[in-house]
């Protein structure tokens, strides 16, 4: 009896060691996130971990995370997009001008702006997919073109203010239902319900997957490890939500982001489009011979990226309550770094949405923490540049070790 328990325990240890060895990248990004959190908490005497700051951090994460979702597809498909920062600025200014100068309602502005993002995606996708100009060049050009268009559009002026409904996209929180309805902090009931639903949903799907895998005779984690994993992830989800439950609630932008994550996790795992993108990035020739329409899929990737850039433009503009000529500057760097930190392969064909979100949290934490410490912007740039190199170096070195 005790021997079999010992056996099971040692088997669990073995699997745990294997998992650690083969998933260094996944663990590394969580370790990086926690490490950065600890460092900034110490350096800022705890301000970093204050509810107010954490809530702020999430708002700061949202637009980079939205861009990262699209960027995962772009990089997995074997491309790159350097133009997202300029497109965020341009679409954001477009939205602000529609509302401030022409008085369009927020809903109309949202639809038109997403449309503009998609059209920009069609433009870039056309050159990349159908004219075979490398994405690096097309989007480098796009970076200049849309930055130029942004400056021309705003005339260098700040465009403000926006309607409350528009601002809510970037600054607002979901409402309280029954408790503390008038308060601006303290327990937030609707957020609590969302948190419970998320955690319950996660556990439900894990169980379902486990049963399905068992039915097909696939290897599953041993029970103790499985339970440990569920508890650990549920605890992390709870930590994530508790910040919002105990402060002002879940921001609308985070709700949008969560919906996007669910949608794109589904797309990458369960649709032919998702599978095709990974195949194209993994081996373009094999994908072509398997009857995959590479041109059309590439076009779709860039249209999605464009529309998500438009969405990020809306969120960012709403958060600042204004559009400026410098909006979105260097967002491409944060986004690309987030995607690589999140374990997406430089060479395409490999990468996950969830990883990129964690990567976006890492980048936003860096921005936030350095901001709290009043690190001047030139040093922030240097730090972020170094982080990008380190992230890619780590990706490459951990891959060659595992090969």
């Amino acid at each position, binding site marked *: 009896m005790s021997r079999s328990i010992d056996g099971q325990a040692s088997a669990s240890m073995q699997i745990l060691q294997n998992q650690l060895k083969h998933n260094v990248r996944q663990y590394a990004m969580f370790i990086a996130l926690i490490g950065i959190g600890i460092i900034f908490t110490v350096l800022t005497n705890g301000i970093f971990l204050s509810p107010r700051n954490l809530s702020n951090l999430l708002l700061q994460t949202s637009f980079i995370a939205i861009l990262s979702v699209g960027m995962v597809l772009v990089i997995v498909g074997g491309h790159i997009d350097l133009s997202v920062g300029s497109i965020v600025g341009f679409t954001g200014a477009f939205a602000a001008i529609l509302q401030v100068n022409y008085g369009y309602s927020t809903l109309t502005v949202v639809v038109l702006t997403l449309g503009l993002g998609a059209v920009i995606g069609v433009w870039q996708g056309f050159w990349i997919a159908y004219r075979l100009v490398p994405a690096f060049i097309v989007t480098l050009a796009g970076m200049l073109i849309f930055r130029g268009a942004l400056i021309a559009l705003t005339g260098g002026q700040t465009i403000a203010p926006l309607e409350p409904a528009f601002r809510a996209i970037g600054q607002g929180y979901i409402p309280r239902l029954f408790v503390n309805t008038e308060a601006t902090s303290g327990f937030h009931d609707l957020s609590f319900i969302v948190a419970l639903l998320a955690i319950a949903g996660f556990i439900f799907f894990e169980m379902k997957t486990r049963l399905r895998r068992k039915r097909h005779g696939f290897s599953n984690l041993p029970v103790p490890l499985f339970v440990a994993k569920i508890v650990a992830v549920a605890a992390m989800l709870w930590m994530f939500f508790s910040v919002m439950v105990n402060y002002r609630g879940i921001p609308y932008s985070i709700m949008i982001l969560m919906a996007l994550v669910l949608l794109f996790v589904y797309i990458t795992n369960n649709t*032919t489009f998702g599978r095709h993108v990974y*195949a194209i990035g993994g*081996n373009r020739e094999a994908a072509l*011979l398997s009857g995959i329409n590479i041109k059309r899929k590439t076009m779709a990737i860039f249209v999605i990226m464009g529309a998500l850039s438009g969405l990020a433009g809306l969120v960012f503009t709403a958060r600042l309550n204004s559009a400026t000529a410098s909006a979105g500057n260097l967002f491409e760097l944060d986004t690309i770094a987030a995607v690589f930190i999140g374990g997406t392969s430089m060479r395409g064909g490999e990468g996950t949405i969830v990883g990129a979100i964690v990567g976006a949290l890492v980048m936003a934490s860096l921005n936030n923490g350095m901001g709290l410490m009043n690190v001047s912007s030139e040093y922030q740039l240097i730090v972020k540049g170094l982080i990008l190199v380190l992230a890619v170096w780590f990706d490459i070195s951990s891959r060659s070790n595992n090969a």
Partner: protein
Amino acid sequence: MSDHILEMKNIVKEFPGVRALDNVSFQVKPGEIHALVGENGAGKSTLIKVLSGVHPNGSYQGQIHVDGQEQRFLHIKDSENVGIAVIYQELGLVPQMSVVENLFLGAEKGRAYRIDWDVANTEALKYLKELRLDVSPKALIRNLGIGKQQLVEIAKALAKKARILVLDEPTAALNEQDSANLLSILRELRDRGVTCIYISHKLGEVLEIADTVTVLRDGKTIGTRDMHGPERLDEAGIVSLMVGRELTERFPRVEHTPGEVVLQVRDWSVQDPENSEKRIVDNVSFDVRKGEILGVAGLMGAGRTELMMSLFGAYGKRLSGTMLLNGQQLNIRSPLDAIRAGLAYVTEDRKGKGLVLGMDVRENTSLAALKYLSRFSIINRLEEIRRAEEYVKSLRIKTPSIEQKVKNLSGGNQQKVVLGKWMLTNPKVLILDEPTRGIDIGAKFEIYNIMNDLVEKGVCIVMISSELPEVLGMSDRVIVIHQGRLNGELHWSEATQEKTMLLATGGTEK
């Protein structure tokens, strides 16, 4: 002083979970051609990597002696310094550079920081002449045929003063002519005292050229035989040492009764993408009948792959030609059209064009048939798993599960995954391009059986193969392509290696 130039003693090399080399000993006499044979996975490549320092000293157990001196190689450079040069299957030349630049790459002639091109060119000419290679040192590598590139590789090794030349499957990509030329040059080198370790799957060549043969199986040395002595091995003898059993029948021939014509190709011409003046496929017409295997023979570069890829919508620009499937005209512009019409093409380049190596067995199996496994572009995961498992079982793919990444499978099992992937599309015509290239004899035999099963089920098979015994052993009919043109057709009962080769080299039937 030992009378062996190279001695590898009790080499043990382990990878996580696998013992790739299990106490291997290997001795080579100076000035001989020593063939190293074994099935895939027998440990040949690993042994060579230990010898060349790719697997550095310390990562394996055992000893290496060169000229009786123990050597501990930590880098490839170390093994090169004592005169060992390895020429891998994938050539290590820079295609955009000239012959002379490649010859002295990393060991440029002249003083520090300045290359003396006059000296380099003179020296290059000397080495090229030694190998009877008639190209200018200034010619670009990419403009040379694969056979000449191989010789440039050898010249490069000689330029490094190599005394022990290791060739890993040097003729795998060569046609018969270039192979014969290579073999005769190796003999000349031997007569000048260069020792040669020769790894090949082509037993005919081994018999022709080897002075000594060492057979590896499952990471162990099975035996070393002097090919001039009384223990001389013949082909069947080597094969039985390799697989540990007598192989009575290398090709499981099944009599098929060809039915009606399924695929008709007429006047098919394709432009050479490199040279718009040239037709890489020129006016080819042929039929494929239900329930038969049509062999496509020809030399490397004859245009066989190009012909099939262009039928499949994946190559070059079609200049003329029509294709009818069951009497219906097809207009194929992309592989997608071809798959829809019921064609399937198993590429000769398994890793480069056949598989997504980072994906698992399930994802690779379903890749070409996702359309049939999904509704509104949402994949039916259960059905996908069921089909993948079905093929793993019926094709006897050796894998821990369908979640194994295909890059971790052996060549033969990878090839079966590719076969399963195309069988899943339910093709009417299955085109196999070098279906058994680089896979071991056991897996070859299984693939032949799968082909026979498919034909039995009414699938038409078109098989390109550069191995004459394979084409002749498996096909019901053979068409022979020479320089883009159809140069004859033979029924299997009348096809001989000599006749086929005559047609492939441009001769005509009497």
